[in-house]
């Protein structure tokens, strides 16, 4: 554990020394902050609150999923992992340190964007802040864990980019991250419940629009936790230190197991009448907020 924390902390320090990392972690997401809230929410406080979840989801998909898998594959391709392989470090410590450092780098952005939304756009502060923190944290860790699985099954950076792009655009357009869920066809709304960003968006909407706490968001929290645990486990099992060691057919089949928690969570939420009821309620609240903003 100590070794994992050391590596994570060093990685955080090193990231602050690389200008491009700072750009992708802070500057780029802040551009989207103003695009989302000025163009889509028209600076309307309730619409800002409704869009906070999708905005964070956008950053999480690019930072956790894309960022983490590309980092690990790059380290493997540059033979950096070999140096660690010679030290008494386990695959879990290596993988965990990357996930933790990226999380530690990302969460200040969430705090900054939330605080700025309250101060600049007068976004109402509703619900439990720690529940909101938990939902965003688990959302980040779940997407990062899927990134670990991607890093485990690809051989090269090019392959990682292809897989990441496929997942990136699917998650962007099918989860309410860019297009409001209520605007999407009914079957896509059902499909969206199989994907972690949707759970993060619905959970944060319940908290920020409905003033809920963690107790009312158990399905989202459990769903995200399940995906995180399963995919971190798979990410560790599929982890390779050496670029010469190529992925096998067995590895790809193992990676397909990552779909199991997504299927379990998706089926559970799709067949849960109580979740469906609450879900619809908050989707409608979001739409009402958007409509109010649109009329301005």
């Amino acid at each position: 554990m100590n070794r994992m924390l050391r590596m994570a902390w060093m990685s955080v320090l090193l990231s602050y020394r690389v200008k491009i990392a700072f750009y992708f972690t802070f500057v780029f997401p802040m551009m989207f902050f103003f695009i989302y809230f000025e163009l889509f929410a028209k600076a309307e406080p309730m619409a800002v609150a409704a869009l906070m979840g999708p905005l964070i989801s956008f950053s999480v998909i690019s930072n956790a999923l894309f960022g983490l898998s590309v980092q690990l594959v790059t380290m493997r391709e540059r033979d950096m992992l070999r140096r660690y392989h010679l030290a008494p470090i386990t695959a879990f410590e290596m993988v965990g340190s990357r996930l933790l450092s990226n999380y530690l780098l990302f969460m200040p952005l969430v705090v900054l964007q939330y605080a700025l939304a309250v101060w600049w756009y007068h976004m109402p502060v509703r619900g439990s802040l720690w529940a909101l923190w938990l939902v965003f944290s688990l959302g980040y860790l779940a997407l990062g864990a899927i990134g670990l699985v991607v890093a485990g099954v690809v051989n090269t950076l090019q392959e990682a980019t292809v897989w990441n792009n496929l997942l990136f655009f699917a998650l962007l357009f099918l989860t309410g991250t860019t297009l409001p869920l209520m605007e999407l066809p009914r079957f896509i709304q059902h499909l969206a419940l199989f994907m972690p960003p949707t759970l993060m968006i619905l959970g944060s909407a319940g908290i920020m629009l409905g003033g809920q706490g963690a107790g009312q968001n158990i399905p989202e929290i459990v769903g995200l936790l399940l995906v995180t645990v399963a995919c971190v486990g798979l990410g560790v099992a599929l982890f390779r230190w050496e670029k010469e060691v190529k992925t096998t057919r067995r590895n790809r089949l193992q990676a397909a197991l990552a779909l199991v928690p997504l299927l379990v969570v998706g089926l559970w939420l799709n067949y849960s009448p109580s979740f469906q009821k609450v879900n619809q309620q908050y989707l409608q609240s979001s739409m009402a907020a958007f409509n109010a903003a649109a009329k301005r």
Partner: protein
Amino acid sequence: MVEVRDLRKNYGKLEAVRGVSFTIPERTIFGLLGPNGAGKTSTIEMVEGLRVPDSGTIRVCGLRPIEDAMQVRQVLGAQLQTTSLPDKISVREAFELFAGFYRSPARVPELLDWVGLNHKAKTFYQYLSGGEKQRVALGLALVGNPKVLFLDEPTTGLDAKIRRELHDLILRLKDQGKSILLSTHYIEEAERLCDLVGIMDQGTLHAIGAPRQLIADQGAGDRLEVSLSQPLDLAQVGQLAGVDAVQPAEGNTYYLRGRSGGKMLASLAVFADHQGNELIEARITHNSLEDVYLSLTGRKIGS
């Protein structure tokens, strides 16, 4: 400290390591001498636990590198052929980070001093020269206070002065009681540093012994390298006065071995003249590991 028995590794159809066996006692520098592609790195990486052997047994301080990986890594230090670290990590930070992974690490200020990088402690890795990066690699190999060290071509690509400095460091490590497995394709490095040398070529370990013993086994004497305008009749040259053995090299170049280089040259010059063959170039050297290598593998180490 290290025991390797009948180690084998194939990459597809290529037999990279073919039944290699050796033992490294305590306080010994064991050199694997051979050209690129001889199987040295594959052998070292299997002993380090970075690669899984197809067959054979390895023990490092009585531990198995794959099965007891975490324990083995507490007692071994390794310098890879190329070490890659983040560009923006300073030398001190790299040492401190890795020191934190071990149960009884070396003290970082002493280590910096030892590898001669005190003045570069705050310098980012990306700004270090090739020699300084090799020193960082050596420092990282030593940071866990290892009992056994693996150095994979530690001086390749370095200039003569830095190479000599690194040689001194390696000899001091032996004096501290460490066992060292060193791979190299430099004859003089093996002769200067190693207590035992394994001659390796095409995945096979042809001979093991102390450098002086290996050279003595070839017979005390000289080597005459000659280039002529026409090919020589090897059988006839072998009969010349003072010539014990003759070996062809590329083109019309030959290696002659015997007790006296001068005698061999004199008799060959007369013989070539009688044959109407012109002696273009001749060089006399004392027997060295190069000759041992040539004799065992039929090739020069650089060829």
